[in-house]
């Protein structure tokens, strides 16, 4: 784990406010675990004080490349969006624990992503697909203009898109779609809290959830990024940055 400079290979907008940033750097060789994240120093003459946590959306460790997909919303991510080809971006990472468990033998992997929670699932889907694991993918967005990566996911497994206003794919929430499922599935989810809560209920313990919280250090030292623990042994909280961001659904109260 260290900080390292990466170079922008490509940076383009792929949906409303959503940018795809492809970077190259030696440290990408260690980005082997889907679900991990990097802590991004916003480039620019005067960077904001804190780094921004972004999931590794895709990586080619051998080619020393990685992809981040983010929503340019606040001052930091908006400033990041101005980085051009050849610019340098400093990353701290890869950080945290990703999706380390595969579905049980013959089990199906159900990937559930909401909005800006979709990116880390892509790297996971690619891995599962490469290992021959059957995939059902459910991706929820607000409206048509927000949808991204749908083709890339469709290449890897059965993909269902929902939009809240029905302007693309199924109308409604992604969680409506999974209610019917009960069986040999293992759930892998990333997205807004209400979505994760619905998955937690639907899936009981066979679910892995990727959580978000505001971070400072990103490495477990400052206790900023806690989530209530469901097991509460030593501490009532787990640290999302270093114990997570991916947790077994039974471990956390969300």
């Amino acid at each position, binding site marked *: 784990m260290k900080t390292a400079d990466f170079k922008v290979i490509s940076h383009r907008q792929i949906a409303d406010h959503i940018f795809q940033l492809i970077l190259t750097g030696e440290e990408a060789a260690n980005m082997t675990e889907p679900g991990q994240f990097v802590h991004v*120093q916003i480039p620019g003459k005067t960077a904001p*004080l*804190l780094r921004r946590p972004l999931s590794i959306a895709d990586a080619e460790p051998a080619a020393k490349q990685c992809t981040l997909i983010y929503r340019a919303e606040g001052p930091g991510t908006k400033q990041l969006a101005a980085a051009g080809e050849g610019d340098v971006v400093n990353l701290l990472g890869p950080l945290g624990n990703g999706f380390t468990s595969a579905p049980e033998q013959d089990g199906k992997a159900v990937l559930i992503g909401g909005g800006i929670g979709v990116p880390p699932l892509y790297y996971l889907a690619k891995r599962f697909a490469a290992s021959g694991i059957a995939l059902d993918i459910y991706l929820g967005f607000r409206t048509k203009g927000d949808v991204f990566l749908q083709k890339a996911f469709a290449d890897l497994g059965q993909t269902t898109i929902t939009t809240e206003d029905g302007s693309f794919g199924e109308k409604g929430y992604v969680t409506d779609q999974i209610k019917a499922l009960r069986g040999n599935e293992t759930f892998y989810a990333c997205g807004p809290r209400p979505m994760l809560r619905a998955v937690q209920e639907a899936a009981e313990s066979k679910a892995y959830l990727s959580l978000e919280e505001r971070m400072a250090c990103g490495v477990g030292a*400052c206790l900023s*990024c806690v989530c209530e623990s469901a097991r509460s042994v030593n501490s009532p909280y787990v640290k999302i940055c270093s114990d997570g961001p991916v947790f077994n659904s039974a471990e956390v109260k969300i």
Partner: protein
Amino acid sequence: MTDLTVNLPGMAMDNPVMTASGCFGFGKEYSQFYDLNTLGAITVKAVTAEPRSGNPPPRTAETNSGMLNAIGLQNPGMNTTVAADLPFLEDYDLPVLVNVAGNQQDDYVNVVDHLSRQAQLSAFELNISCPNVSCGGLQFGSDPESAYKLTKAVKNTTEHPIYVKLSPNVTDITEIARAVEEGGADGISMINTVLGMKIDLQSSRPLLGNERGGLSGPAIKPIAVRMIYDVSQAVSIPIIGMGGVASADDVIELMLAGASAVAVGTANFADPYACPRIIGDLPARMHELGWKSAQELTGRSWNHCKSPLSTLR
């Protein structure tokens, strides 16, 4: 050769740069980045007698050149700390300052008494200034009488040197400083965070789970400099200065103001290598400004000696 060593009660430091409490855990996380022996000293996260669960998230928010935190002293309590966290530092050869918090005087005395037997420990830092807990802590930091009593009671409990960490959220910080000096404090740490708040425009509610938080980072450096300048002239015990330090220049500025050593907090988050980078930059920067040793920096902004450069030029 620039001499970086500084000597504070209980802490013979190879250089004046240490970590600030709560921003560096017990060092384990940052030991993945560099050898902790590079540091002048380490201050660990606040320890309380009983486990504390801290405040509900969100616990941090960014502000202009600063951040707010409302961690709320989350820690597993002194027993677990002794068993699980402190031993990690056994492998290192550097002074360890243990930050202690509590609700009432007895809590502090308890923790200090309990931890005094720990070999890794060099001195205690009494946190009488945490803005993020509803009860305890802060009242000691704003009332000279209770600050005096607390310091005295703790001094009677241990042989270890005692640093008292002061809050900037007071009308007259020199008054509290004098009280803890009188109570027997061996040194003063300052400043803790400045009380602040951010409102989330989407929800129109305070952004932090605890509503108010403590402001740290470069935004508060001018406040720290002013207070260190004033307190260093009011007391004769050494000061560990902190507040927004992110560069060798900042270290020099806080020492010129009156600090004998300097702690780095928030800067670790942006750059995990902040401390070794600052320590590495110090000798050249001091040389450029005409300083030969770290010790001669302390208080030179007010003690009316000429600065080396103005003598040279």
